[in-house]
Every structure is written in C-alpha cells, then in structure tokens.
C-alpha cells in the first residue's frame, strides 16, 4: 500500500481479485484486474461491469422542506432543482463567478432531502463550498458511512431484478431505496459508461456482502479505472479536471443541454447562480471554443495535451485534446477536445501533432458509441 492513501471498503476485495492498484484522487484504487483494460471494457459493453466508485463524495442537503433546499442549491448550480420530481436524478455542475465549472455532479430529489454525488478529487472543496453558501439554513452532511458501486452493461437489469422486481421498472435517472442482499441501498438508474445500469449507495458495513453477491453472477466482473475511462470517453462523457474545469464554461463544454429553460433568459427563475451573466450570454451567442469529438483517421492514439492544427503547416494551434486514447468498442483511436468555434463543425478535417508529426483527425459527433439507456 502506498503511504497516506485512503482505501475504499472494497480494498481487500480488489487485492483478492488481483487488482493492480494506483493512487487516484488520494485513494488507492484498482486501475485494472487480471483481464486487463481491453477485456474489461468489452465485458462491460457485452455483459455487466461492477465499478468501485466509493471514492466519490456523497452529500445530503437537508432543509425544512424540499422546496427550501432546492432553492438554496439553485444559488450554486444553473439547473432546475425545484421542479425535479421526487425520486428523480439530474446531472449538474457548480459554477464560479467567471462562468467556469468548479465540479460536475449528480443530484437527486429524495423526497425530504437532496442527495448530491461529486467527484473524489473535488469533494472537500465542494463540501466547503456548499457549507459556506447554504449553512445554517440547510444542513450539509458528508456521508463517510456509505460505499458506492456502479453496475453497468446490458446484463445489469437482469442481475438487479433478482434482488427486487422494482429495479427492472426503474427508468434512466430514476432513484429508489431497495434492499440488495439484506442491505438498504439507495439506487439510481444511471452511470458513466453509456450503458444501461445502476449506481448503488450501500452502508459500509454491508458493502462487501453486496459486492460479493453481485460478483457471484456469471455475467458480473469487477472493472478498473482504466476501462472506466475508455468507456466514458467512447460515451462522450466529460472527466472533470480534463475535459471541464474552471477555465471551461458550460457552452464551450457543449453542456447547454444540462441547463434547463427555467434558469435561462426568460425562464421562471432566470440566473441567480455564479457566473450567470457569462453563461446566459454564451447560451444565446456561443463561446469562442467548443468541445467536440475527434477521431484520428490513422491508428495512432491522440492523448490529452495533443495540439490540434487547422492544416499540416499552420503555426498556431486551433485546439487541444483533453481526453484521448484507444476505443476498444470503436476499435480505433478516439478523443475529445476543444477547437475554435469556426472549426467545431462535424466532418471538419483537422490535424493533431503526435511526436512532431501531424496526423489527420475528423471532428466527430459524440458519443462515439450509441447510448443504451433505458429511457
């Protein structure tokens, strides 16, 4: 074990299953198991992968009633929290005064409270941000007593339905509280792979029991962070700190869809979140750069940091890869990154510079693989 790294409740199980552990956001996490990234990726797309995401932050926001809590959270995120139905979840992000993104997150209306799930690397800052702006009216409680698993892939529904028939009835972004192997689990039908699946919050004391029960199914294998990254890249999903950060705005990140009408110009509750001036203006008028899919036409992967040029000889870069690698399901290299708005049209040929040579890359629609959500 590396010095000073935190462990999730599944640490011993990862080692038992032959995981290769690496430091990630202050945790000792499994990057892959014996099968390796490629097989783990393809297993998730064909059967079901189980992911330990317990390093992520689970936070409960509780006020006198849902409306008060929702209105408070709307001061920090440009989403429509108020009208989110009971037992429904939504994607969102904290913004800063410049219109940049502090972190992305999921939030769920759980009746009398809101459950927020944030990225591991940002969770301390996020919790401090929430406390600073919401307390004392709203209680901000970080849950250190719950683990988080995701089960993703076409076999996930059949596996989960063995524990309770209601799992099969859930639609994409529904949330529910149901038992698995005797433990009370908070479950959402969502994930980070582009596949159908569930994210499962489990009391720490029951975490290993639930994981072993799920792993007992023939179709379920533990999957490491390596395949998690290639799966989400093919699904066109942003990784905070890479594809989005404080220097990217929602519009530049192609995330306008996540900002509901109620918070936009002429909406019922226009603005009122950090950076609203910049963000609402860009929704109307566009941003100078845009996040796009990039498909190298050759075989060489283009990884994070590769500079993008308009042609083979131009001196100034027009963009940069923010995530890239090989897409095992696409069977070719895939990437995403930012390019100037005039070049962000699907089908445009640009050039990525790898090891001093320029290789053609095509601006491409995201996702690279069709989403399999149960809508």
């Amino acid at each position, binding site marked *: 074990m590396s010095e000073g790294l935190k462990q999730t409740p599944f640490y011993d199980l990862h080692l038992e299953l032959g995981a290769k552990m690496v430091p990630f956001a202050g945790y000792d996490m499994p990057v*892959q198991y014996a099968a*390796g*990234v*490629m*097989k783990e990726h393809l297993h998730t797309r064909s059967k079901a992968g189980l992911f330990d995401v317990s390093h992520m932050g689970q936070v409960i926001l509780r006020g006198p009633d849902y409306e008060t809590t929702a209105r408070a959270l709307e001061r920090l995120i440009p989403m429509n929290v108020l009208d989110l139905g009971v037992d429904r979840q939504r994607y969102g992000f904290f913004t800063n005064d410049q219109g940049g993104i502090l972190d992305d997150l999921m939030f769920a209306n759980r009746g009398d409270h809101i459950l927020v799930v944030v990225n591991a690397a940002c969770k301390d800052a996020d919790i401090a941000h929430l406390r600073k702006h919401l307390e004392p009216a709203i209680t901000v409680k970080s849950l250190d007593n719950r683990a988080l698993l995701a089960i993703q892939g076409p076999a996930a529904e059949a596996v989960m339905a063995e524990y309770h028939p209601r799992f099969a009835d859930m639609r994409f972004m529904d949330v529910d509280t149901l038992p698995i192997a005797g433990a009370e689990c908070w479950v959402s039908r969502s994930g980070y792979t582009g596949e159908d699946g569930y994210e499962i919050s489990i009391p720490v004391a029951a975490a290993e029991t639930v994981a072993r029960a799920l792993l007992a199914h023939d179709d379920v294998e533990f999957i490491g962070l*390596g395949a998690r990254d*290639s799966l989400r890249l093919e699904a066109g999903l942003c990784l905070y700190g890479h594809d989005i950060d404080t220097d990217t705005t929602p519009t530049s990140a192609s995330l306008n869809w996540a900002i509901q009408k109620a918070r936009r110009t002429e909406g019922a509750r226009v603005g009122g979140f950090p950076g609203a001036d910049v963000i609402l203006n860009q929704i109307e008028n566009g941003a100078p750069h845009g996040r796009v899919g990039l498909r190298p036409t050759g*075989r*060489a*992967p283009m*990884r994070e940091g590769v500079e993008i040029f308009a042609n083979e000889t131009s001196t100034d870069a027009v963009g940069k890869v923010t995530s890239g*690698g*090989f897409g*095992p399901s696409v069977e070719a*290299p895939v990437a995403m990154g930012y390019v100037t708005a005039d070049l962000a049209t699907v089908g445009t040929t640009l050039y990525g510079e790898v*090891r001093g040579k320029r290789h053609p890359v095509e601006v491409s629609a995201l996702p690279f693989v069709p989403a399999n959500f149960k809508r």
Partner: protein
Amino acid sequence: MKFTEEHEWLRVEGDIVVVGITEHASTQLGDIVFVELPEEGDTVSKDDEVVVIESVKAASDILAPLDGEIVEINEALTDEPSKVNEDPMGDAWFFKIKPSDLSQMDEYMDEAGYNALIG
C-alpha cells in the same frame, strides 16, 4: 538470445540481429493498440528511438540496441498491434538490423541474467 535492460530480446541470424520485446514487457505494457516502425534502410545509432508502441495505457519507445542499418521490418504489426501481446517472443518481432559492430552484443544479458533482472 540476448536481452537488454529495456526488455528487448536480440536473436542473431548470421550477420543480422532480430529485435523484439519480451513477454514480461508486453504483459507490463498491457493491450497494445498501435505500433510505429522505422523504415527499411534507416541507419540508426544505439539508443535511438526506433519504434513507438502504444498500449491502452500509454506510449513507449523501443531504442535501437545496436548501431547499424534496419534491413527488414515486421509490417504485420502495423495492422495487428495485438500480435505483440499474443506472441512477443516469436511472430511479433519488430525489426531486423544489420549491426556495424556485432561486438556491441557482448554487453547484453543472457536469459538467466534477464530472468534475474525481472525477478
């Protein structure tokens, strides 16, 4: 067969040396998805970067183990990089080099020495 600390193997065939990477190296690299080879006729110096390998995780270089001329490359690897995982010690050789000084081979390890290195 001789081995370098960079996890290459070298097999002498007459006045030619065939170069590949070891089973240990291919396992450590993970699933290989891209191989860029030098060109036949290239003159290279020892420690020049002559091959690029990319796995799902990262890019790595293979260094020329000897001074000499690249006389043949294994073009099949360009189309099927995964061969490097399947048969690193056999079919998935990278290139053949005609060394200008075959005595440069003397500094490299034998199999027992290499096995001791990788533990």
